């Protein structure tokens, strides 16, 4: 089981740019990019809450658990 980050899908749905979202939630564009690509060990509840607030969504809309091959 692995966690897949669907942030890019949510951002496209909400038509928000990475640069704008990073500025609004107070993280660097580089970190947001790492988060989108899933190249991070974890996400803080604080960051997740800010993303959910900005994108008006639930954590489940951003994160998805999927079976590994």
């Amino acid at each position, binding site marked *: 089981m692995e966690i897949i980050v669907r942030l890019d899908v949510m951002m496209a749905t909400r038509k928000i740019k990475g640069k704008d979202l990073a500025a609004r939630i107070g*993280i660097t564009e580089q*970190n*947001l990019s*790492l*988060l989108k690509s899933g190249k*991070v*060990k*974890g*996400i*803080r509840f604080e*960051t997740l809450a800010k993303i959910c607030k900005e994108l008006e969504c639930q954590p489940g809309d951003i994160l998805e658990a999927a079976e590994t091959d």
Partner: protein
Amino acid sequence: MSSYNQSNIRRLAKFLFYVTTLALLALPVLFIVACTQTEMLTEWLRETYSDYRLPDVISSTKFASILAIEAIGVFLTLFVLWQMRALFALYMSGETLTERCAKRILRIGQGLVAVGCVSFFSKTIVVLILTFHNPPGQRTLSISFGDGDLGFLLAGALIVVIGWVSKEAARAAEENKAFV
């Protein structure tokens, strides 16, 4: 880490970097100069080891042996200063909770423990050298443990522990970086 704290670390580290650099340059020079001042050294030896029956004339061989033993302590002190200088250079560049800093702290602690041990044994050996050619019954084997030795050993051991703790802190900081 707050920017105020970081700027304090950088400022003090910069000052200490120059102090340790100066000490690194001055210590060997002072030691070499002291080695050439035989009269001053004789006076110092007689004062330091006034409790023991020292020979009227201290031979050049004994002098050389004593200086060689003292040189070990100087060399170890230089090692500790070199490690401190390297640590302050890292702090100056803004690197604090890293594996490299922890390694330097650990080496400083180990160096101080070694200075304490050498200081403890060197006194015994110096007294033995000085009294070695005394008539039988007047040769001395002295084992003493002073405040200075204990201070170095305790400070060194404390810094070794801080070094290990810093390693753990560096690992935690590295892990924290992987979280967004």
